[in-house]
């Protein structure tokens, strides 16, 4: 594989930081402000795409920004795994910002400047995490995401918003400082380096017990991946405005979480090491547990966003589960699911937001017959839901298919059962909503008739829904990138 | 004889006792002036320690008698202690100055009363 020295990844990260400054300066001129956001998003996407061809050829773009201490560098490394997340995030940022503009303006939210600034910072950090070349860099951007999104979660500044944000911060910062950091220190002490390597860096360096401890520390430390019992921050972060929830729960935060897990499992430990020590199995069962429990909890939520949140928790564990299988198909599935779930889930959140904008409804029990008032929105919801359940012809099916294959390769029937069960559960907590929306009579005192959300809100969610479909029919790009990863790590 | 034996450590012990007296005065007394006096005793104990070590059996004061040979006491501790005394009086002076101001501000130099006042203000 060819190594290319280039600063493009650095620029890709800096674009939105620059945007932050500009947004802050033009806070008094909203249209200018929003222009900055959009253009930054476009430029960022452009930069990422510009790196695509090289990576497609199996190349790796590297750039060493600064070396803080011997062995502690802030370095970037664009490989196929990283660029998948980068593509997803930067593309969805464009759409999300369009949506955000529509949402924030129609709700006349306050402190929009702060909102867009933090948004931009979060995106830069996401890029940084996607492109980070070592654990240290990953850790830094991971923390930046946490802090910058705190402001977004606390946006309302209402007591419950603030307390929710507090819990959000406590969980993410706390776990990362108490578990992630020492895991990093131990890695450094044993491996002598923190740079990712496709075969892992700990292989043969640390005793099995140590490997187990370090893995545990990492898994617990990366709470953004929403593994039980450190998933609680997710529901409590639901107080945030919907575009934020969309960003948090579909793109930036949770995806960085699972991405970090994948990155570390594959590039710090390495498939062989984990397979040798036989830790994958435990991780897999751990994930299964989360999948089932979270799905059941989702079933019990009446608040739409909360139900989506718990669904996210369980979906994230698919990614962890898939990678924990340590088989080619499993890894393929986990990587693809990062993107596919992003599209599906962001659609669903957009829908929740659209409903709130149009009717100020939050609860599922209020949604009877809403399909007639908001046909576009709800059709978008249907697509998203199907993607979650993994029904063809929606993207979700692809990843789950590979997941099942992975389970077979790994000879782990229980996992198959879990997959089947969770699929049923998904259906159980999404389909009723679709049914109620389209086939139930509206509640008395509801004005039937067409009242769709503003175009700037609806258009984005139609786009993402289309994306979710497209991923089923044309998964080629995603699949190729994934294959290159798999070929390297296994 | 017995006295000789005693003398080999006597001043050290005295020094220790004096230090203890001074320390106790500084910590246990409420009156600030009393604390400062305790401070002086505490420091003078150290003087005693040094000067005692400077004395040598059969030595004379370290002022050279150029024409005849003689055994002199150790001048260095004396020099150090001159400095120490000066430091001591300087500290005392500053302490007293602060006490004056405390009296102006609080109308008393009893620590317990002063602390009560501070509590009330919080």
């Amino acid at each position: 594989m060819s190594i290319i020295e280039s600063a493009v990844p650095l620029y890709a990260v800096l674009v939105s930081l620059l945007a932050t400054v500009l947004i802050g300066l033009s806070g008094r001129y909203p249209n200018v402000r929003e222009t900055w956001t959009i253009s930054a998003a476009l430029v960022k996407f452009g930069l990422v795409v510009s790196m695509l061809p090289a990576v497609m050829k199996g190349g790796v773009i590297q750039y060493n920004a600064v070396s803080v201490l011997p062995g502690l560098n802030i370095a970037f490394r664009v490989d196929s795994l990283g660029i998948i997340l980068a593509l997803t995030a930067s593309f969805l940022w464009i759409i999300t910002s369009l949506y955000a503009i529509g949402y924030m303006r129609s709700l006349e939210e306050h402190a929009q400047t702060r909102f867009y600034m933090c948004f931009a910072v979060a995106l830069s950090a996401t890029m940084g995490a996607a492109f980070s070349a070592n654990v240290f860099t990953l850790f830094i951007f991971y923390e930046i995401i946490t802090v910058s999104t705190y402001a977004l979660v606390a946006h309302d500044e209402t007591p419950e918003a603030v307390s929710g944000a507090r819990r959000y911060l406590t969980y993410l910062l706390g776990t990362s400082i108490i578990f992630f950091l020492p895991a990093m220190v131990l890695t450094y002490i044993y491996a002598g380096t923190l740079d990712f390597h496709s075969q892992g860096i700990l292989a043969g360096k640390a005793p099995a017990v140590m490997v187990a401890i370090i893995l545990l520390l990492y898994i617990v430390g990366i709470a953004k991946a929403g593994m039980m019992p450190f998933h609680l921050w997710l529901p409590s972060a639901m107080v945030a405005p919907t575009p934020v929830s969309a960003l948090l729960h579909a793109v930036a935060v949770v995806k960085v979480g699972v991405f970090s897990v994948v990155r570390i499992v594959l590039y710090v430990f390495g498939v062989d090491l984990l397979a040798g020590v036989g830790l994958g199995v435990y991780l897999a069962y751990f994930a299964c547990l989360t999948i089932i429990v979270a799905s059941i909890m989702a079933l019990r939520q009446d608040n739409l966003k909360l139900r989506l949140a718990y669904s996210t928790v369980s979906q994230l564990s698919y990614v962890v589960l898939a990678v924990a299988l340590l088989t080619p198909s499993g890894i393929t599935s986990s990587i693809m699911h990062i993107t596919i779930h992003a599209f599906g889930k962001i659609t669903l959140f957009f829908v929740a937001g659209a409903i709130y904008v149009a009717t100020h409804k939050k609860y599922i029990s209020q949604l009877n017959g809403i399909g007639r008032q908001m046909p576009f929105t709800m059709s978008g919801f249907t697509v998203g839901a199907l993607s979650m359940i993994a029904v063809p012809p929606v993207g979700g099916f692809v990843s789950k298919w590979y997941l099942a294959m992975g389970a077979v390769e790994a000879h782990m029937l229980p996992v198959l059962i879990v997959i089947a069960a969770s699929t049923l559960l998904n259906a159980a907590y999404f389909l009723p909503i679709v049914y109620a929306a389209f086939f139930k009579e509206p509640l008395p005192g509801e004005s039937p008739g067409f009242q769709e959300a503003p175009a700037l809100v609806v258009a984005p969610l139609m786009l993402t829904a289309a994306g979710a479909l497209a991923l089923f029919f044309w998964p080629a790009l995603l699949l190729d990138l994934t294959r290159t990863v798999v070929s390297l790590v296994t | 004889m017995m006295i000789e034996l005693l003398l080999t450590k006597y001043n050290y012990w005295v020094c220790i006792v004096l230090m203890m007296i001074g320390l106790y005065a500084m910590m246990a007394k409420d009156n600030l002036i009393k604390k400062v006096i305790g401070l002086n005793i505490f420091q003078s104990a150290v003087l005693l320690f040094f000067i005692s070590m400077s004395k040598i059996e059969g030595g004379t004061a370290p002022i050279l008698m150029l024409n005849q040979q003689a055994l002199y006491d150790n001048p260095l501790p004396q020099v150090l202690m001159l400095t120490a005394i000066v430091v001591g009086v300087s500290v005392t002076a500053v302490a007293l100055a602060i006490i004056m101001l405390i009296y102006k501000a609080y109308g008393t130099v009893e620590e317990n009363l002063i602390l009560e006042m501070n509590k009330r203000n919080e």
Partner: protein
Amino acid sequence: MNGKAAEKHRHEALAAGHEELPRHRHVIGRTVTKILIPFIQLFGLYVIAHGELGPGGGFQGGVILGVSVMLYILVFGLKEGSRRVTTNARDLLVSAGVLIFGVIGLLSLPLGGKYLQYGALLDDPRMGNHLGIMGVEIGIGITVAAVMITLFCEIVRRDDDD
């Protein structure tokens, strides 16, 4: 509330201050002091100068000088004393002593010596040392005397003196 208390105490203190400084200016006391002080000061100077040969030195001499002035203030009152040794003079002297010491130390640098290497001051290092020590002692004496006087004045001053 304690503010008032403090105020009251302060006035008592002022009163105390009044008694502190001798109101009764006995002729005898004054004359005796007038006669005595020059001798005390002379003795102080002697102790400073005698430091090289016998016990004593800048510090002890300085203290004695300071005491002489204190005595004067005690007998003739602070106003009178401040007229003799003005505030500015005191401040000047406090600094002057240290300056003398420090500068004597510096002198040897251009002469190729280390800091405080009096030996370099004259051709004969021994004489140089002797000279340096003498100068240093004088510096010490000045500062010590000035500081002692200052301390005394600043603490004894009554609040209505200025």
